[in-house]
């Protein structure tokens, strides 16, 4: 049954390679699958720019994401729990959230550079903005989704406010928090690349790598880079899903 899943994908790749091999698609527009794989090998062995190997770029990008995402989660989860629990707080902060949230993280790039200069801080800030709102909103939804009867049951067991917070609200919100974290990670990872387009001081990062590949007119390497970005995104998401299903055995 597993094999069936990849059937369509393989078919598409074969058609694609066929179209390229018979020169039905100009090379400069779309490289063939084979060329992309070869480009990938070159990225791994030689690097773009030369000497900056693929795994360097990957590590730098991951580091930026980890920073921006880590701060986002550390702020959004507690804030979300509090906003979920205290209606007044929620009413006060919501307008601010609703105004800032629609602004695309990338629109913040100019001001981020003014505030933090070009470098890891501004890239991490953009990623932070991308990840923060999904995590926050899903955490709030998590608290609000808790059946009130559970809170009452806890009260009849003599729970005080802090008991309710740590023993009911927090565990009860975990499923939604995970959803928020996965979405936030997805957005954060996607934002990363564009954030890196604007410039990274050290010359490392997947976004930077793709931009350089464009500058030297290597579409095969551009596409190989995109493939790597997609695969890493997939792996991180899969990793989170595994953690999630272990933590949510009770479902």
């Amino acid at each position, binding site marked *: 049954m597993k094999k069936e899943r990849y059937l369509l994908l393989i078919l598409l790749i074969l058609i694609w390679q066929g179209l390229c091999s018979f020169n039905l698609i100009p090379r400069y527009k779309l490289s063939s699958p084979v060329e992309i794989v070869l480009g990938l090998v070159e990225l791994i062995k030689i690097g773009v720019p030369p000497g900056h190997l693929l795994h360097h770029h990957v590590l730098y990008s991951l580091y930026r994401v980890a920073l921006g995402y880590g701060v986002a989660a550390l702020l959004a989860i507690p804030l979300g729990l509090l906003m979920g629990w205290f209606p007044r707080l929620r009413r006060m902060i919501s307008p601010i959230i609703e105004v800032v949230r629609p602004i695309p993280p990338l629109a913040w790039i100019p001001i981020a550079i003014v505030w933090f200069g070009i470098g890891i801080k501004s890239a991490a800030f953009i990623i932070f903005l991308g990840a923060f709102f999904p995590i926050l909103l899903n955490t709030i939804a998590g608290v609000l989704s808790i*059946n009130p*009867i*559970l809170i*009452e*049951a*806890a*009260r*009849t*067991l*003599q*729970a*005080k406010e802090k*008991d309710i917070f740590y*023993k*009911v609200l927090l*565990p*009860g919100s*975990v499923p939604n928090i995970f959803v928020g974290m996965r979405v936030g990670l997805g957005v954060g990872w996607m934002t990363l690349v564009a954030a890196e387009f604007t410039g990274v001081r050290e010359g490392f990062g997947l976004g930077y790598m793709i931009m350089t590949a464009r500058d030297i007119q290597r579409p095969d390497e551009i596409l190989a880079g995109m493939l790597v970005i997609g695969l890493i995104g997939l792996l991180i998401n899969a990793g989170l899903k595994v953690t999630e299903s272990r933590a949510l*055995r*009770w*479902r």
Partner: protein
Amino acid sequence: MTLELLGLSKTFYGANESEAVHALDHIEYRIESGRFVGIIGPSGCGKTTLLRIIAGLEKASEGKVLLDGKEMLQGSETVGMVFQEYALFPWRTTLQNIEMGLEIRGVDREKRRLTAMEYIKQFGLSGFENRYPRELSGGMKQRVAIARTLIMNPRVVLMDEPFGSLDSQTRNGMQEFLLKIWQERGDTIIFVTHNVDEAVFLSDEIVVLSRRPGRIIKRVEVNIPRPRDRTSEECNRIRRDILRVLEVEMKKEERER
């Protein structure tokens, strides 16, 4: 230990004055230690509200609840509650659900675990201590809920139609189970139900509430020795008595519509 309900009234206010719902009207009642009291009444008569006021989940509009002459404080060690929908914490195993109250109280882990395991054994839940609520049947879930409440040794145990979600065979079994536990422990139990048969089978005394606003309209002492035969003439007599009173209340409701 005496629990007194003095002139308890409750009104729920809607958006405007005309939407006020009078749930309870001057409930006066006294319960002695170790008694099993059944409360029965038509739907919407305020029986759940009454329980919630005693539990401290709701504030009375008028009147007081006194325990041994003193007003009860919310969150004190006096009252435990079992809900119809079990209200088990889905992310906690059977064991963890049962020890929840002890955990909140600060009892150390070893002691908690031992005490909880005793209850698990006594309540026929052995082998299920590490299962999650979604893996348990309705009857098991309710047993966990009852264990979770009784392990705290509350002065008064409130039960809000605890067997309402169960099929009738499981329900009868649970009634017998509850009686057995009660006879061993001697808790004071206030048991709300829709089911007259259940009330007659279980209670020392049955309190019948009128339709909204709920008032006590009848008190029936059930002196039949236990174990009771549901089909006996004595039980039937009391059932008829109560059903008649409830019928009158329902007719009044219909006339008003």
